[in-house]
C-alpha cells in the first residue's frame, strides 16, 4: 500500500520526497475544491515534482454547471503536459477526460457508490483507462476488503484528514461579513447549533462555494497495516488543514503503529479524530423507527381506513379495495397502536344513511361503532 498526499508549496514537495512517497496530488485553484495554486504555481510545482521523480496527479474535483464546465475543459488543455494522471469527481469531467485526453484516470467515488455494481460501472465505462478508484469513507472494513478483491483497479481510501459533510456552490458566509471580504477570498468560520449535539464545525467559503466539515477528522492510521494486508492500493493523507510536517510521524505510524505512539499522536493532533463507519455502518437502522408500520401495512386483504369513530353511533370506513365491502365480510381492524379487533358487520349504511348489503370502492361505509377503534385504524378482510 502506497501513501499519497497533497502538496501546496515547494516545502511540501520536499517533505514528500524526503519521506519516499512516489506521487503527489496538486490542486489548481480553479479545478480543485481546496486547491490554492494559480497557473504559474501549478506549473512550477509540477515541474519540480517531476524533477524529484514524483508522479503528478491533477485534481479536478469541483462540480460544475455547464457554463463553468466549458471554460475549465478548455483551460485544462494548457496543463495536459504537466501532469501524469487526472483525478475527477463530476461524471461530466470523467466523460470529457475519457474522450478528450489520453491520461490515466482516477475517479473519486466518495459520495454514494456503496455497491460493487456501481464501482465496476465507472471502471468499465472508461475501457481500461481507469487507473484508480477512490472509495467512500462510509464503507465498513468488510466491504472495503471485498471491493479491493473484486475490483480490477487499485483502490484508494482516506487515511487521515477532514471529513467533508456538505458542499454547495452558494456563498453562505460572505453575506454575513458585510463588506469585509472580496470575491475569491477564502473565509473560515466555526459553527455550532443548539439543535445539533456536535459543536465546532469548520466551515470554509471559497470561489467554489461553501463547505462544512465534521468536528473531528477521519483517521484510520491504526488500521493501516490491516488495510495494507487486504490489498488496498493507496492510503491518502490530507494535511491541507493541518501541518505537512506531520507526514513523517504519520508515515512511521502507518508502518508500525504502537499503541503508545498512536495515542501520543492523537493527543498532539489539532483536531479530535474518529474512524467513522470503518468498523460498522448502521446508518439505516433507525429508518424503521421513522415509520408507523401499522400504517404502512396495507398489502393483501386491505379494505380501507377508519375516517370517523363516533362513540355509540358508527365507524365510517373509506373503502379503498376495488372489491368493495359486503355486509357478510368479517373484518380485522388494526388500531394505530397495534391492537387488533375482529368484527362482524351488523349494520352497513351509505352516507345517505340507507341500509345496504354492499358498498362499492371509493365510497364511505358506515358500520356499527366498535369500542376501542380510533380514526386511522386500518381495516382488512379476515
Amino acid at each position, binding site marked *: 500500500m502506497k501513501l499519497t498526499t497533497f502538496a501546496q508549496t515547494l516545502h511540501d514537495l520536499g517533505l514528500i520526497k524526503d519521506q519516499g512517497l512516489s506521487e503527489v496530488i496538486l490542486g489548481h485553484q480553479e479545478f480543485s475544491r481546496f486547491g490554492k495554486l494559480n497557473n504559474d504555481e501549478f506549473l512550477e510545482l509540477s515541474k519540480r515534482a517531476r524533477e524529484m521523480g514524483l508522479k503528478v496527479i491533477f485534481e479536478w474535483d469541483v*462540480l460544475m*454547471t455547464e*457554463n463553468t*464546465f466549458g471554460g475549465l475543459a478548455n483551460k485544462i488543455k494548457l496543463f495536459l503536459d504537466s501532469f501524469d494522471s487526472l483525478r475527477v469527481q*463530476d*461524471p*461530466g469531467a470523467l*466523460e470529457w477526460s475519457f474522450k478528450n485526453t489520453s491520461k490515466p484516470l482516477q475517479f473519486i467515488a466518495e*459520495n*454514494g*457508490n*456503496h*455497491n*460493487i*455494481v*456501481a464501482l465496476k*460501472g*465507472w471502471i468499465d*465505462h472508461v475501457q481500461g483507462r481507469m487507473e484508480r478508484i477512490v472509495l467512500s469513507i462510509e464503507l465498513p472494513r468488510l466491504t472495503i476488503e471485498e471491493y479491493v478483491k473484486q475490483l480490477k483497479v487499485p483502490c484508494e481510501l482516506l487515511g487521515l484528514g477532514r471529513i467533508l*459533510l*456538505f*458542499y*454547495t*456552490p452558494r*456563498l*453562505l*458566509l460572505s*453575506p*454575513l*461579513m458585510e463588506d*469585509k471580504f472580496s470575491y475569491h477570498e477564502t473565509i473560515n*468560520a*466555526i*459553527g*455550532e*447549533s443548539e*439543535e445539533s449535539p456536535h459543536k465546532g464545525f469548520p466551515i470554509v467559503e471559497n470561489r467554489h462555494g*461553501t463547505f*462544512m466539515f465534521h468536528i473531528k477528522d477521519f483517521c484510520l492510521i491504526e488500521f493501516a497495516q490491516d488495510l495494507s494486508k487486504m490489498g488496498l492500493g493507496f492510503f491518502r493523507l490530507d494535511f491541507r488543514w493541518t501541518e505537512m510536517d506531520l507526514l513523517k510521524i504519520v508515515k512511521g505510524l502507518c508502518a508500525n503503529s504502537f499503541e503508545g505512539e498512536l495515542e501520543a499522536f492523537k493527543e498532539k493532533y489539532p483536531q479530535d479524530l474518529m474512524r467513522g463507519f470503518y468498523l460498522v455502518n448502521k*446508518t*439505516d*437502522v433507525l*429508518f424503521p423507527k*421513522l415509520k408507523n408500520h401499522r*400504517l*404502512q*401495512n*396495507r398489502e393483501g386483504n*386491505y379494505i380501507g381506513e377508519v*375516517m*370517523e369513530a*363516533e362513540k355509540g353511533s*358508527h365507524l365510517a370506513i373509506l373503502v379503498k379495495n376495488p372489491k368493495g365491502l359486503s355486509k357478510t365480510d368479517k373484518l380485522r381492524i388494526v388500531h394505530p397502536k397495534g391492537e387488533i379487533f375482529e368484527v362482524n358487520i351488523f349494520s352497513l349504511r*351509505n*352516507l*345517505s*344513511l340507507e341500509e345496504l348489503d354492499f358498498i362499492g370502492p*371509493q365510497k*364511505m361505509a358506515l358500520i356499527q361503532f366498535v369500542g376501542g377503534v380510533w*380514526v386511522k385504524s386500518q381495516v382488512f378482510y379476515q
Partner: protein
Amino acid sequence: MSQVLPEILAPAGSLDKLKVAVLYGANAVYVGGQKFGLRTAADNFTLDELREGVAFAHERGAQVYVVLNSFLHDKDLLELPEFVLFLEEIKVNAVIVSDLGVVKTVARLSNIPIHISTQASTLNVEAAKFWKSIGATRVVVGRELSVKEAGKIKREANIEVEMFIHGSMCMAYSGHCVISNFTQGRDSNRGGCAHSCRFEYSLDMGLDTEEKKKAFFMSSKDLEGLRILPEFINEGIDSLKIEGRMKSHLYTGTMSKIYTEALRYYHEHGNFLSDDLLYWESELKKVSHRTYTNASLIEKAGAESIFNERENSTEAEWQMVGTVIEASPNCGIVIEVRNAFNQGAELEILPFKGQVINIIANEITDIMMKPLTRTKPSTLIKLPYKAGVESMQLVRQKANS
C-alpha cells in the same frame, strides 16, 4: 402555438395524493415504494397501491414515475430485482434513479425508461452524455443550473431534461451532503436527512468582535418558477417538477392545478400578459412555504436565496379544512375534516379546473344529520350540496379565521 409543452410532474406521497395530483391536472406524478426511495418517513405506496395508482393515472392519461433514488448499499441492491420486475409488470412509465448500480440493475432486468435523479447532480452536457450512454432517457438536472444551461444540455446531449420548478431545496449539491450520516447516524442518501441545514448556527468568523453571528445561513428559500415558464418552454425543457412528496394534499392539488393552468394559458395565448398571472401567484402563496426565490433558474443563486429565518416562521395564508369525500344532491357535500371550522366559516372549494367555489358554512351537520356549530378534526361533516363540487376536491379557509 406549435411549441411542445413540458409536462407538469407532481409529487405523490400517497395514493390519495396521486389521485389529487392527477385530478388537478398533473401530466405525471412521481411516487415511492416502501423501499429504495429517499423519503423514509413518507407514507409511500404498497405494491397494491402502486398497481392501483398506475391504473388510475393511466386511465386519465397521466404517467407514473417511481423513485429508486437512494444510493444503495450491496445488501439493498440484492432486494431490488424483484421490485423492478413488479414495476415493469404494472407498466410504470419510468424509474428515477441516482446510483449507477441501480441504473445498471434496472437496465439489465427491464426495459423501464430510466430518469437520472437530481440526486446524481447532473450539471453539464458531458455528465448527461455519460448517463445517456449508460441507458438513461432523461436527466433531472441539478437545481444549480439555469434554464439556459439545461436547454443546452438537452440540445447537445440529445436527452430529455427535467427541471425543478417549485418547492423546497437542498442547499447542498444534491447527493453531496452527509451531515446526517455523520452527526445523527442516518444516511441522508438513503432517506435519513435530518435537515441540519435548517438549523440556526452560531458562527465564529474570526472577526474583531467577540460576538458570534447567529444565522440560518445554510437554509434555502423555496423555489418558485411561475414567471419563468416561457423560458422553460423556449428552451425545450421536457418536464417541470414540483418538489414535495411529504407535503399536504392542499399543496399537491394547488401546485398541480396552478402550474397546469398557467401552462395551458401560455399554450393558448402565446404570452403571459394576463391578470391571471397575479391570481396564480396569489394561489401559490396560499400554501405553506418559505419565502420564494427563483434560485439559479435565471442566474446563479446569490445571498438573496438564503432563508435566514426560523422554520415555520412563514405561516400559510390559507389552511386546508379537509377533502370532499362525496358530493351529490342526495347526500350533500361530505367533508373529511382535517382542521376545525365554525358555523358561518367562509370556505373555498378548489375545483379541478377553473375558479374556486365559495361556500359559507351556515348549515353544518354530522353525518347522522345532527346540527353542529363547530367541526372537529378527524370527523366527517355534511354541508348542503352545491353544483360543481366533486369527490376528492380540496377545501380550505383563510388561516386564523
